[in-house]
């Protein structure tokens, strides 16, 4: 045990480990906040869909040879998020189908482009690290960490300020629209925040596992808590703890960061389900 702490202390001397922990925790916090809304709006898979869009956009950026990928990836992802959430309500192709379509489509195009035009010799390695985010979180630069911190602060601030409005729009969109809340505007806001979070989170867990960061905290909290506020708070706290734990474990055991965090999330979900079942049993 003592040896473990020593090893951990030694690792924390490195700035890249500190960076990884900071970004990991912040991203987990942001994604869990909106997770509750997304799960309730039946958009659990939007994380998946958008991250694949971001993957496709990244491939395009790489092919075009942009030095700063974010310039292309961020706008494209935001655009898709807006389209998906806006058309989710009243269209010929329903929410889940359109998410699935865009998600798979972007993934295929992205891989195709990378395959056709890639200059790198290790193509499957590149693809794998974008999909599973293998090591990129450990190679973050100081600027990237700062960008992440700033964006996270903005996301959290927006969420807190618009908390009541987001609740309204999530619970009953027609009612809020009818009584004069600008539901369309807030949906747009939610879509933009989600896109920002997803592009950020790609560094951490890669595009295949982002949904886990969005869904697990929300679903776990919903097993136990009864009010929207307590569910949101619990999801945020749980997500932060799980990702911190996941990063520490992955450093100690040398496992991939993204999948370790998700594994910890799964364990936590099981724990919460059990607690919920026991609490429910007592009440009955």
């Amino acid at each position, binding site marked *: 045990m003592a040896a473990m702490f020593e090893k951990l202390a030694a690792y924390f001397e490195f700035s890249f480990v500190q960076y990884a922990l900071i970004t990991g925790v912040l991203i987990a916090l942001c994604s869990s906040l909106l997770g509750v809304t997304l799960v*309730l*709006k*039946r958009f659990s898979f939007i994380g998946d869909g958008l991250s694949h869009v971001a993957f496709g956009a990244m491939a395009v950026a790489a092919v075009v040879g942009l030095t700063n990928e974010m310039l292309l990836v961020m706008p494209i992802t935001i655009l898709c998020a807006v389209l998906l959430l806006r058309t989710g309500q009243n269209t010929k192709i329903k929410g889940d189908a359109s998410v699935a379509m865009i998600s798979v489509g972007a993934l295929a195009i992205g891989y195709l482009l990378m395959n056709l035009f890639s200059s790198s010799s290790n193509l499957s390695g590149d693809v794998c690290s974008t999909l599973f985010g293998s090591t990129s979180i450990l190679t973050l630069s100081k600027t990237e960490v700062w960008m992440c911190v700033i964006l996270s602060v903005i996301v959290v601030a927006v969420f*807190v*300020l*618009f*908390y*009541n*409005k987001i*609740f*309204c729009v*999530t*619970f*009953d969109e*027609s*009612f*809020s*629209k*009818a*009584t*004069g*809340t600008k539901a369309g505007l807030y949906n747009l806001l939610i879509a933009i925040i989600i896109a920002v979070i997803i592009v950020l989170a790609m560094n951490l867990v890669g595009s295949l596992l982002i949904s886990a960061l969005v869904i697990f905290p929300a679903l776990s909290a*919903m097993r136990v*808590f*009864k*009010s*929207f*506020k307590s*569910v949101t708070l619990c999801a945020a706290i749980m997500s932060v703890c799980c990702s911190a734990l996941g990063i520490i474990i992955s450093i100690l055991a040398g496992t991939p960061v993204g999948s370790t965090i998700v594994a910890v999330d799964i364990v936590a979900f099981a724990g919460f389900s059990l607690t919920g079942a026991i609490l429910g049993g007592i009440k009955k």
Partner: protein
Amino acid sequence: MAQLSCQGVSLGYDGKEILHDLSFTVNEGDYLCIVGENGSGKSTLMKTILGLHSPMKGKIVTGDGLKQTEIGYLPQQTVVQKDFPASVREIVLSGCQARCGLRPFYNAEEKQLAAEAMEKMNITHLAKRCYRELSGGQQQRVLLARALCATRKVLLLDEPVSGLDPKVTVEMYRLIHELNVRDGITVIMISHDIAAAMRYATHILHIGKTVFFGTKLEYMDSDIGRGFTDEEGGEE
């Protein structure tokens, strides 16, 4: 000036007209029941009144100092709401949202308003309970309390008793009737329950192949009213 007047409105989806040239007025304190067969456009009409849907022709005008956003709305429940983790208080309070404008949090006055609405609906003791654990009748009362937070003038109810058992149904009608008579709130209700419509309503709007608008007595005397009430086994 009427609170709400519908002037030559035609409604429809995708260029197909369902309702043609509909006109009626609602005055303060009225209790209007909108009846008609399935697919006759009742819900579309309701959405149009709320401003969620624009009419193909004609217009809906509000008067007497009523703004369109001051219409309280009791929607039919959606699937999403059935398992929504929210406390009763949070939901009732969300009815005050439109008053907030850009202000991020609720103030004391709005909290007071929510408390009064819960008191009126007899759900104060449920305030901390989770919405999804309540019975159908209790859920409807929560949503009605939320609608009361949004308005003091007009309530629009979309089949408020569907899925409720007979005892709770009677209770629900009594609550709505009380709001209408005691608090002077105008009620516009979509209903399949013609017997209840005949008992409580002051005015009837019947839409479908033939359209009728008038007071309850006029409706009972009209051919369409007689046909409909006999068929449905109305009790009057």
